[in-house]
């Protein structure tokens, strides 16, 4: 292996975009080598230049981008010097790419067969029949059932997971030497993602394809890659093997990133997240010297802000490990693993919310010809089926589930944007499930507020920040006097740690994290007894998300607010919640205290979810459970247990035909499953951590 020449060799690559504002350096001094069969990970937050690198390798930069200097050698030939025709012959046959949004990447008006078969037909002299045979073979390889049917479909007739498998098949058709994967699972649900990740890992083994895997998620990189490159603001700040870099990160930014990710082994009180302060610099506002300088705790004036910092080999590490930091061997990073920052748990108070057999059905009118003939025009979608749970003052209750599980519908009913079909929701003694928001009193409204998911959507772009928060205070009859309202807004801005002159700013002048902070300020303006947070940080970069999460919990702690946290990410849930409700297709599969949920007995779905969550810690052992198939359509759910079609522990006919019973595993721990509790209790934990003594490994030990 050592003597083999690399498949791809990038040296000192600089890429710039040319805009009206002038030249914007997107990627600076980028070097990378990919060997035969190796998988390289590139990880970084949005705007760090990782996708630009991928596009540069494909030599597809758009009209205003260009390679300024450096070389990209593919099998020894410099791609930057190639003619358009030479490039065309490489693309699709030698280098293939897999994209972030599979649906947008497929042509909506051509059949899958056409789009797949044209790859070998273009690059090889091959007959149509042979091409078809090969296509069917590859579709089977990517584990798509019934390839013939897939071939005759149009992209919109497939599910997201199937589309991504088709795109992967498209990439593999000509057996390329190099496969580029640009966030290939970001648009997918966790359990579907797990299947794709496994497929990608299998491919590199089976075909010996070299891969470059681009992601913002350190956990995914850990599961798929051999080597990893961490990018920050257009440059690589650290590179190394997975083991070396994940256990012994040397660059303060890499280290900071790990501090921002909640691990499923930690919780909020024992080990709070350590957000990186500040935000990513814009490409034309990068500081002198080290780009990470202004956000770094180890910044030394006169040293870190001088010359541009070069990559340096980490001495003492046999594994090839480099970092772009002047002080890598001076900083005692390990000493700072947070210990003292632990906080006391909040005391749980009286009952704030009680959901009793809440149901929400929608009616969907189907206008297809068959439906009209058979008289089934109006079908019911059971968005929420018999929800039961309780939340107390100061408690954080998480609702976890993938898309279509009904968690957002439940939030809408709670907020009064929809009314429930049946059952009760009792909030502070009042039944509210059937009262639309228009009929609720301002007291009821202000005591139940929401933080929304999308930071770019949560604030009205045509109003100033100040007027939006003031409006809430006015609406809730908290204060009438203009000056006092102004004072209150200022205090709220202080609470969410934003400068007071944001009062006159407009949303477009704010970053995503700042907008989300305003969203939190707005929700807490009326001092609510309960706040619903619908994936409040899922759209934010990890370093920013950690800060917003911490802020949310700090305010909650102060106000003793009940927090209903809706999420698909079990790591975050484990980190911040006291109780967890796991939902699937409109039903609660399991509910209980966080510890109960994260250890056996599990509901099989909880178990699969836990296994699907990527964990950015190489020392944690995880049992692999990959679910087959897709999440069924809520329009047409399975008759018995909703999970029966994908369950890896299905016990037989009873799962398909009869709704499972609620089994009480412990006090306030309920599992909805046909499998007897005794059986479930025997299940091994999904996630296991080695002894503390076996943990922190030094690079020396790695090399031995």
């Amino acid at each position, binding site marked *: 292996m050592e003597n083999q020449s690399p498949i791809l060799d990038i040296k000192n690559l600089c890429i710039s975009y040319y805009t009206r504002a002038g030249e914007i350096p997107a990627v600076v001094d980028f070097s990378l080598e990919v060997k035969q069969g190796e998988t390289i990970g590139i990880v970084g937050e949005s705007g760090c230049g990782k996708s630009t690198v991928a596009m540069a390798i494909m030599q597809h930069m758009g009209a205003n981008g260009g390679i300024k200097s450096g070389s990209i050698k593919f099998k020894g030939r410099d791609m930057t010097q190639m003619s358009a025709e030479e490039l065309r012959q490489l693309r699709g046959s030698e280098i293939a790419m897999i994209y972030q949004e599979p649906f947008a990447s497929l042509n909506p008006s051509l059949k899958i067969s056409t789009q797949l078969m044209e*790859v070998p037909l273009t690059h090889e002299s091959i007959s149509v029949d042979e091409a078809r045979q090969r296509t069917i073979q590859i579709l089977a390889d990517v584990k798509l059932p019934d390839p013939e049917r897939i071939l005759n479909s149009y992209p919109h007739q497939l599910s997201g997971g199937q589309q991504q498998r088709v795109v992967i098949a498209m990439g593999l058709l000509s057996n390329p030497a190099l496969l580029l994967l640009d966030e290939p699972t970001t648009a997918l649900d966790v359990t579907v993602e797990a299947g794709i990740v496994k497929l990608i890992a299998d491919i590199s083994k089976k075909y010996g394809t070299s891969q470059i895997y681009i992601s913002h998620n350190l956990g995914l990189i850990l599961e798929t890659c051999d080597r990893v490159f961490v990018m920050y603001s257009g440059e690589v700040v650290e590179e190394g093997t997975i083991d070396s870099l994940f256990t012994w990160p040397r660059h303060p930014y890499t280290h900071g990133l790990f501090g921002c990710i909640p691990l499923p082994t930690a919780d909020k009180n024992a080990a709070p997240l350590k957000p990186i302060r500040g935000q990513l610099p814009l490409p034309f506002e990068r500081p002198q010297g080290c780009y990470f300088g202004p956000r770094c705790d180890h910044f030394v004036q006169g040293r870190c802000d001088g010359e541009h910092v070069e990559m340096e080999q980490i001495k003492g590490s046999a594994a090839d490990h480099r970092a772009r930091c002047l002080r890598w061997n001076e900083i005692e990073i390990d000493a700072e693993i947070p210990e003292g920052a632990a906080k006391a748990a909040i005391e749980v108070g009286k009952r704030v919310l009680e959901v009793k057999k809440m149901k929400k059905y929608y009616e969907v009118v189907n206008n297809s*010809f068959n439906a009209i003939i058979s008289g089934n025009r109006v079908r019911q979608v059971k968005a929420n089926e018999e929800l039961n749970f309780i939340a107390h003052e100061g408690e954080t209750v998480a609702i976890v589930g993938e898309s279509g599980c009904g968690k957002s519908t439940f939030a809408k009913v709670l907020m009064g944007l929809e009314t429930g079909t049946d059952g009760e929701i009792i909030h502070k003694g009042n039944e509210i499930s059937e009262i639309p928001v228009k009929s609720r009193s301002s007291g009821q409204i202000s005591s139940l507020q929401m933080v929304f998911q999308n930071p770019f959507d949560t604030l009205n772009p045509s109003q100033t920040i100040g007027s939006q928060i003031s409006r809430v205070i006015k609406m809730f009859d908290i204060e009438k006097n203009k000056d006092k309202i102004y004072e209150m807004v200022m205090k709220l801005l202080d609470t969410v740690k934003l400068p007071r002159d944001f009062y006159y700013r407009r949303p477009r002048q704010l970053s995503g994290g700042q907008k989300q902070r305003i969203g939190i300020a707005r929700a807490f303006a009326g001092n609510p007894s309960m706040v619903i947070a619908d994936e409040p940080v899922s759209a934010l970069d990890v370093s920013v998300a950690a800060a917003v999460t911490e802020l949310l919990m700090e305010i909650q702690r102060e106000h003793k607010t009940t927090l209903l946290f809706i999420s698909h990410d079990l790591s975050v849930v484990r980190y911040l919640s006291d109780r967890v409700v796991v939902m699937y297709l409109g039903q609660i599969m399991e509910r209980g205290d966080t510890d109960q949920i994260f250890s056996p007995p599990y509901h099989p779905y909880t178990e699969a979810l836990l296994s699907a969550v990527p964990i950015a810690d190489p020392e944690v052992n995880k049992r692999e459970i990959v679910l087959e198939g897709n999440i069924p359509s809520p329009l047409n759910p399975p008759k018995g247990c909703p999970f029966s079609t994908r369950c890896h522990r299905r016990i037989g006919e009873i799962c398909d035909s009869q709704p499972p019973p609620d089994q009480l595993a412990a006090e306030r721990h309920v599992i909805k499953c046909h499998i007897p509790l005794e059986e479930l209790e025997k299940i091994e934990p999904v996630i296991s951590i080695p002894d503390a003594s076996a943990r922190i490994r030094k690079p020396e030990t790695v090399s031995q």
Partner: protein
Amino acid sequence: MLVMLFKRIVAMALVMLVVSLILFVIFETDKLAVAGKVLGPYSSVEQRELWLSQNGYDASFSTRYLKWVGNAVQGDFGSSLQLKVPVSEVLWPRLFNTGILALCLFSIMIPLSLTLGILAGMKEGSWLDRSVSTLSVFTTSIPEFASATLLTAVFVFSLKWLPGTSAMSDGFEWNQMILPVLVLLMYDFGYVARMTRASMAEVMHSQYIRTAILKGLPYWTIILKHALRNALIAPFTIIVLQLNWLLSGVIVVEVFFAYKGFGKLLLDAALFGDIYVIEACTLVAVFVAVFSQFISDVGYTFLNPRIRFS
């Protein structure tokens, strides 16, 4: 698909029914005024009432309306007051003449504007793109009667190449068609070319075109196989919907060049107060407009597999 067709047809019939009701209410609620129009302004009230009872106007409003609709469906719109002949005798030949005009227009406009629009949209920012875009803003900015005026000034009065009227009094003459078609073409070409360009440019920016490029397909395969199919959906509906616009533009052009078409018939009728001709012309025009909407909807569904198979 069948259900959609059926629903569209029902909707179309409903719109036609409402339009006919509006027309009938506007023109025939005031019976005496109708009689006044027929018998002339100097007729006495007795004469008018006599005419009304002779022509079945004593029946109730709804009976009259139903009878009128029934006749209209069979092509009987009554008699023209101005020309003193049954409306259908003038309407169909005039409509045929307008049809010739439209045919000439579309047979030049469609290939021209689609080709230029596609070529411009393929390479945004190229000189061809800029010239097509600028030219089309210019031509769409000049209203038909202004461009008719300017073209007449140049080709008729200055250069004396072409006749200034297109009345075809000595039978059909090709050179009388040139100016009317050219005027309509200027406006229509610009609009369709712009829309085609925009649609093509959008497709060229899409991710699936990026996929096709990065698959290593040859450039013309990408354009012909991947881009055109998606880029032509929008222009198709736009061209079909142009029929509606053409019925407006054609009035001005036919009046300007004294072309004996449907538009001139309608305007003359409106200026004279020839109510039966107005009713007939409007019904026909609305029918053409609604029908073209129907064709464009069906075509859109047919061209777009996302809607076709869902």
